[in-house]
C-alpha cells in the first residue's frame, strides 16, 4: 500500500447497519447453545452485525474477519456466552496487525460488561450503589450521598466515554476494579459507574463529584489503584505507600513491625521498611549471653508474612527492605534474592534497596576501605545524614568501633552484580533525599528510607509511619491537536486545570482515608503529603516527533515538571488559605521561604507566578508538605492507555503480562507513521517481530523515524538520567527511575550508577535487562538468507578460526 492519506488508504468497513459484506461468508455447521438452552446454528452474519455496530469510526477493522476467526476457534455446542467472550478475545488478538482491533475489543467488552450489569436489574448508577450498599460493599456516607443526589448523578453518566478505553485497560478494569456481587461474583458496576463511585467517595457536592468524574473518565488523570479500588467503599484505605522506620534493636519492636506491615498490606498498600537499626550476625545478645543470627532470619519471617497477605485477591502484598551499606550484614542482604545458594537465606518475595550515604560513594570513587559498623554499637547512624553522618561515621572508625573493613569498590561491585542478576537492590541516596526534602528543616526530622517504588521521600520515626496517596496526570491527554489530527504542543491551560483538581482531591484523601496503623494515623494529618505524578511522557514525545534524548525533549520535559509542581504549589497554597496550613508547616523549609528551585539552585521560567506563589506561601503556608512524586503507574497507565510515567517505550511491539493474562501492545504512533509511509504490511510486521520490536533494522525507513522510535534498550541511559536530573528541582519527593541495559556488565553498571549519583538523583528503581538467549520464535518465518548471529559474532575463544575478523 503506497497511499499516504490514512482515510483514503483505509479499507471500506461495512457501516454499522449494513451487512452482510460483499464476499459470501463461509458456511458453518456449528451450533451454539442459547441462554434458553436451545441449540441454534452459528450465523456468521449475526456475529458480523454484532461486531460492526462498534466499528463506525474504526476504518481499518474488518468485522467479517473477526467473525470468521471467532467461529474457527469455536467448538460445536458452545454456549452463546462463550461465543461472546471468544469474539472479544479474537478481536483483541488481532491487535498485532492493526491497533484499531484493540479499540474494537474494548468496546465489545464494555458492551459485555454493561449487559452483565443490566442483567441483574441495575439500570442506573444510583441503583448500582444501592445494591452495593445492601451487599455491604459501599460505605454508608457514599450510599447516602448518592441517594440524596440520585437524579443529578445518574444523568452525569456518559456511557460513550467507554469508547476511550483500549482493550487491555478495560480488561484490567473489568477483572479487578469493578465491584462484584459477593455471592454471584457478577460485576455490579459499569466502568463509568465505577469512576463516578470513586468521585462520589471524595466529594461533598454533586457538582464536585461530576467534575472529578469527568476528569477521570476523560482519562486525563487517574488516582492510584488503592483509591480506585476503595473510594466509596466500606474500607476507604486509599493510600499507596507506607514508609515504616526500622524496628528498634529489640524483639518486641521487630514483632510490632510484622503486625504493622501485615495490617498496612491488607488493603492494597505497598510497604517500604528499613532494617538498619537491627544488630548484625555475631553481635552479643546481653539478655541470653548468646550471639545474634543477624538480620537475614528476621527478613525471612518478614518475607513469609508479606507473601501471606492477599490484598483482597487483587494482588499479593509487597514490600521493599532498605538497608544502609555500613550494616555488617549488607553482603548477605545483597544475596537475598539470588536463585542459588541456601534457600533458608533467601527472600524471594521481598524487594531490596540500598540506602546509600555520600560518604560511601566518595570512598568508592577514591578506592578506599569502607567500614562495617554494628548498629548495636553505634546506634545513631540511621538518624544522621550529610556532614553529621560523615563525622559520626569517621569517629566510630577512629575509635575502632567497627566490625570489619572491606574495599568500598568490592562492596559496590557486589551491589552492581545484584542489580544485574536480579534487577533488585535499588540504589537510593540518603543524603540527596534529605538535603532538599521540605520536611527536614529541623534536626530530628529525617528521611530514613523510601517506599516500595523509590519515589516517596518522607520523614518517619519509630512512632510515625509516613503515608502517601498518589495520582498521575496523563500527559497524552494534554496535547493541542490541530484539525488535521497532528499534535502541535502541550495544552498548558488544560494541564493547570487538571493539576488543580488533582491536588484538591489528593488532599481530601488524607482526611477520608482509613489508616490501618496508629503510626500511620499519627504522621499523615501532620504533614499532609501527597504524590502527584505524571504518565504518558513518551506519548507526548512521539506525538511531537521529539527523540527521547534530544535537547527539545529535555527542555519540554523540564517545563512540564515545572508547570505541574508550580500549579500544585499554587493549589496547595490556595487550600491553605481556605482550610489552614498543615500542622507541621512551621517545621518545613517552605516556612523558611525555600521552595525546591531555591534548594536546587535553579531558575524557573514562570518567574512572575513563582513570585506570587512565594507571597501566598508566606501569608497562608501550604496545605501539604510534599506534592510531587513520580510513581511507576504500571497499572493506571494501562487503564489510561498511555506509556508509563517518564519511561521510554521498551519496544514497539511487546506483550504485557498481568494477572488478567497476556496482551499484545503495538506502538500506535509507529503504526500511524508506517501507514503514512505505506509500510504497515505483513513484511514489516514480521521484521518488527523478528527484531523484537526494534525498527533499526527495517530497511528503507527515514533516519528520523528510526531515531524517534528507538526503544529503551537503544537509547543512551545517560539521557534518561539527564532528563530525571533536569526535572528533579520540580519534584519535591522523587522519581521511580528505571534504567535499561540489555547486556549489563559490572563496568557499565558502576559507571552508570555513579553518574546517577553525581547528577544529584535521590533514587533509582529497577535495572531492567534482557535474557541471555531468546526462545525459538514459533510464529515468525525462519530468518531469511541473512547469516545467523552466531556466525558473525566474534568468538574470542578461538581467534584463529574466527572468520568475522578476517
Amino acid at each position: 500500500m503506497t497511499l499516504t492519506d490514512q482515510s483514503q488508504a483505509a479499507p471500506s468497513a461495512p457501516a454499522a447497519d449494513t451487512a452482510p459484506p460483499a464476499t459470501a461468508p463461509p458456511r458453518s455447521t456449528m451450533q451454539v447453545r442459547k441462554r434458553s438452552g436451545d441449540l441454534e446454528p452459528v450465523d456468521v452474519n449475526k456475529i458480523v452485525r454484532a461486531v460492526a455496530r462498534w466499528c463506525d469510526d474504526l476504518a481499518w477493522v474488518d468485522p467479517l474477519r473477526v467473525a470468521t476467526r471467532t467461529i474457527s476457534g469455536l467448538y460445536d455446542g458452545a454456549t452463546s456466552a462463550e461465543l461472546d467472550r471468544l469474539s472479544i478475545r479474537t478481536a483483541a488478538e488481532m491487535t498485532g496487525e492493526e491497533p484499531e482491533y484493540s479499540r474494537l475489543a474494548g468496546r465489545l467488552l464494555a458492551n459485555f460488561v454493561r449487559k452483565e450489569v443490566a442483567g441483574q436489574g441495575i439500570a442506573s448508577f444510583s441503583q448500582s450503589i444501592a445494591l452495593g450498599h445492601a451487599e455491604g460493599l459501599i460505605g454508608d456516607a457514599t450510599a447516602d450521598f448518592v441517594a440524596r443526589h440520585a437524579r443529578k448523578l445518574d444523568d452525569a453518566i456518559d456511557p460513550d466515554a467507554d469508547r476511550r478505553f483500549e482493550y487491555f485497560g478495560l480488561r484490567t478494569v473489568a477483572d479487578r476494579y469493578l465491584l462484584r456481587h459477593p455471592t454471584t461474583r457478577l460485576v455490579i458496576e459499569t466502568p463509568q459507574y465505577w469512576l463516578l463511585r470513586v468521585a462520589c467517595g471524595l466529594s461533598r457536592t454533586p457538582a464536585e463529584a461530576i467534575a472529578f468524574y469527568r476528569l477521570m473518565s476523560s482519562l486525563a488523570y487517574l488516582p492510584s489503584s488503592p483509591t480506585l479500588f476503595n473510594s466509596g467503599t466500606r474500607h476507604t484505605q486509599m493510600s499507596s505507600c507506607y514508609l515504616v522506620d526500622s524496628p528498634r534493636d529489640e524483639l518486641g519492636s521487630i514483632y510490632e513491625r510484622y503486625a504493622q506491615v501485615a495490617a498496612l498490606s491488607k488493603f492494597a498498600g505497598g510497604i517500604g521498611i528499613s532494617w538498619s537499626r537491627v544488630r548484625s550476625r555475631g553481635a552479643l545478645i546481653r539478655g541470653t549471653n548468646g550471639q545474634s543470627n543477624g538480620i537475614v532470619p528476621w527478613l525471612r519471617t518478614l518475607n513469609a508474612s508479606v507473601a501471606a497477605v492477599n490484598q483482597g485477591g487483587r494482588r499479593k502484598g509487597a514490600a521493599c527492605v532498605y538497608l544502609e551499606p555500613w550494616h555488617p550484614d549488607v553482603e548477605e542482604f545483597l544475596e537475598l534474592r539470588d536463585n542459588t545458594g541456601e534457600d533458608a537465606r533467601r527472600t524471594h518475595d521481598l524487594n531490596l534497596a540500598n540506602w546509600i550515604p555520600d560518604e560511601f560513594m566518595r570512598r568508592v570513587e577514591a578506592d578506599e576501605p569502607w567500614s562495617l559498623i554494628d548498629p548495636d554499637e553505634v546506634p545513631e547512624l540511621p538518624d544522621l545524614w550529610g556532614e553529621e553522618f560523615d563525622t559520626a561515621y569517621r569517629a566510630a572508625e577512629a575509635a575502632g568501633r567497627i566490625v570489619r573493613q572491606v574495599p568500598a569498590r568490592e562492596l559496590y561491585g557486589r551491589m552492581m552484580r545484584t542489580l544485574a542478576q536480579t534487577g533488585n537492590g535499588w540504589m537510593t541516596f540518603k543524603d540527596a533525599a534529605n538535603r532538599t526534602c521540605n520536611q527536614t528543616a529541623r534536626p530530628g526530622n529525617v528521611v530514613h528510607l523510601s517506599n516500595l517504588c523509590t519515589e516517596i521521600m518522607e520523614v518517619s520515626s519509630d512512632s510515625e509511619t509516613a503515608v502517601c496517596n498518589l495520582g498521575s496526570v496523563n500527559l497524552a491527554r494534554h496535547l493541542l491537536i490541530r484539525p488535521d489530527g497532528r499534535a502541535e504542543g502541550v495544552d498548558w491551560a488544560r494541564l493547570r486545570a487538571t493539576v488543580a483538581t488533582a491536588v484538591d482531591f489528593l488532599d481530601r484523601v488524607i482526611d477520608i482515608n482509613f489508616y490501618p496503623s496508629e503510626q500511620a494515623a499519627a504522621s499523615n494529618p501532620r504533614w499532609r503529603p501527597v504524590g502527584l505524578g505524571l504518565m504518558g511522557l513518551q506519548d507526548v514525545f512521539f506525538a511531537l516527533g521529539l527523540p527521547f534524548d534530544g535537547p527539545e525533549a529535555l527542555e519540554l520535559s523540564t517545563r512540564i515538571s515545572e508547570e505541574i509542581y508550580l500549579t500544585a504549589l499554587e493549589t496547595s497554597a490556595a487550600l491553605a488559605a481556605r482550610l489552614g496550613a498543615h500542622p507541621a508547616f512551621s517545621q518545613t523549609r517552605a516556612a523558611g521561604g525555600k521552595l525546591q528551585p531555591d534548594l536546587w539552585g535553579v531558575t524557573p521560567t514562570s518567574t512572575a507566578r513563582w513570585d506570587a506563589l512565594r507571597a501566598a506561601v508566606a501569608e497562608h503556608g501550604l496545605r501539604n508538605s510534599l506534592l510531587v512524586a513520580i510513581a511507576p503507574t504500571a497499572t493506571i497507565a494501562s487503564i489510561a492507555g498511555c506509556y508509563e510515567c517518564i519511561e521510554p517505550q521498551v519496544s514497539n511491539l511487546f506483550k504485557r503480562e498481568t494477572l488478567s493474562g497476556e496482551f499484545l501492545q503495538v506502538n500506535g504512533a509507529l503504526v500511524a507513521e508506517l501507514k503514512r509511509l505505506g509500510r504497515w504490511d505483513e513484511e514489516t510486521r514480521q521484521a518488527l517481530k523478528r527484531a523484537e520490536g526494534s525498527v533499526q533494522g527495517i530497511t528503507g525507513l527515514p533516519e528520523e523515524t528510526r531515531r524517534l522510535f528507538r526503544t529503551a534498550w537503544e537509547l543512551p541511559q545517560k539521557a534518561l538520567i539527564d532528563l530525571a536530573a533536569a526535572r528533579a528541582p520540580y519534584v519535591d519527593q522523587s522519581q521511580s527511575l528505571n534504567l535499561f541495559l540489555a547486556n549489563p556488565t559490572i563496568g557499565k553498571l558502576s559507571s552508570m550508577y555513579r553518574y546517577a549519583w553525581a547528577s544529584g538523583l535521590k533514587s533509582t528503581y529497577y535495572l531492567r535487562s534482557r535474557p541471555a538467549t531468546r526462545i525459538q520464535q514459533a510464529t515468525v518465518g525462519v530468518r531469511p538468507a541473512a547469516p545467523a548471529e552466531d556466525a558473525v559474532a566474534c568468538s574470542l575463544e578461538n581467534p584463529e578460526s574466527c572468520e568475522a575478523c578476517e
Partner: protein
Amino acid sequence: MLLDPGMELTLRPMRYPHFYDRFRDAIKNTWTVEEVDLHTDLADLRRMTPAERHLVSRLVAFFATGDTIVANNLVLNLYQHVNSPEGRLYLSRQLFEEAVHVQFYLTLLDTYVPDETERHEAFAAVENIPSIKRKADFCFRWIDSLGNLDELRTREDRRAFLLNLICFAACIEGLFFYGAFAYVYFLRSRGLLNGLASGTNWVFRDESMHMAFAFDVVDTVRREEPDLWDDEFEAQVSEMLAEAVECEVQFAEDLLGGGVPGMSLTDMRGYLEHVADRRLELLGIPARYGSANPFAFMELQDVQELSNFFERRVSAYQTGIGGQVSFDDEEF
C-alpha cells in the same frame, strides 16, 4: 570429524567454539524451581470448566514423563557420539536443565494433584493414557533405533544418529513440547495458571536453546560430511515430522475433546503443521504443509514481555555477570 568415534579431550585449540559459546549462554539462563510461585494456580483450577481441567490433567501427565525421555536419550544416544569436549559441555548443561524441568513438573504435579492415587496414575501416563502412550511409543522407537550402536562407523550409522538427533530436536522438543506450550500459553492468555506459565516460560527458553544446539550439530555434521544428506534422507525427515504431527493431533483430540472455546482441533492442527514447516525450513527441507499459524496468543510469546512487577516475577535477568568496577565505561 564430530561423529568420529572416540573420546576427544582437548579443549585447546578449540574446534567448535560455537558449542562452547552456547554452553556459556545457557549458564546465564539458570533458574530454579523454587522461584516459581504456583499458589494462584490452585484457585484457577477450581474455577475452570471440566473440559479445561481435563486438558490440564492430560497436559501435566505428558510433562511428567516427557523431559525424562529426552534426558534418557541424551545420555544413552547422543552424548557418546558427539565427540567434542565443548559439545559435551553443552550436553552436560542440557542434561542439568532437563533435570530441572523434571523437578519442575514433579513439583507441579504434586501441587496440582493432591490425591495420591490420581497422582500415581498421572505419573504412569505412559502406560495407561492411550494418547500419551502413542507419543511415548514414537519416542521409544527412535531411541531404540540407535540403541545398539557403540560407535558410528558407517554412513548408515551416522544417518541413523542424525535422524535420532533430528527426531528429538525437531519432533519432540520442537513439536510435542511446542504443542504443549501452546496449551499453557492459551490458558495464560486468559489469565489462567500463571505459575505453570512462568515455569514454562523458562522451560521454553531452555528448549529453544536445546533445539538450536541440536540444529547446530546437524549443520556441523552436514558441513563435515555432506554425503550423509540426500533426497532420500530429506524425505525420511519429512515423513518423520508428518508422523509426529499426527501423534500430536491425536493427543489434541483427547485434550480438546470436551470443547474448549478459543482452541479448536482444526486450529491446533494448523498450528502444529505451521510449527512442523518451520522445523523443516530450519533444516533446509521444503515446507510440507503451508499452514499459517492460527494462534494469535502464540505471537505473544515471540515478543518482549513487560511485566507488572507487582504481579509477576520477571524472568528476564541473567546470571554470571562479569566485569570490574570502573567509572569510565561510556556505554550506558
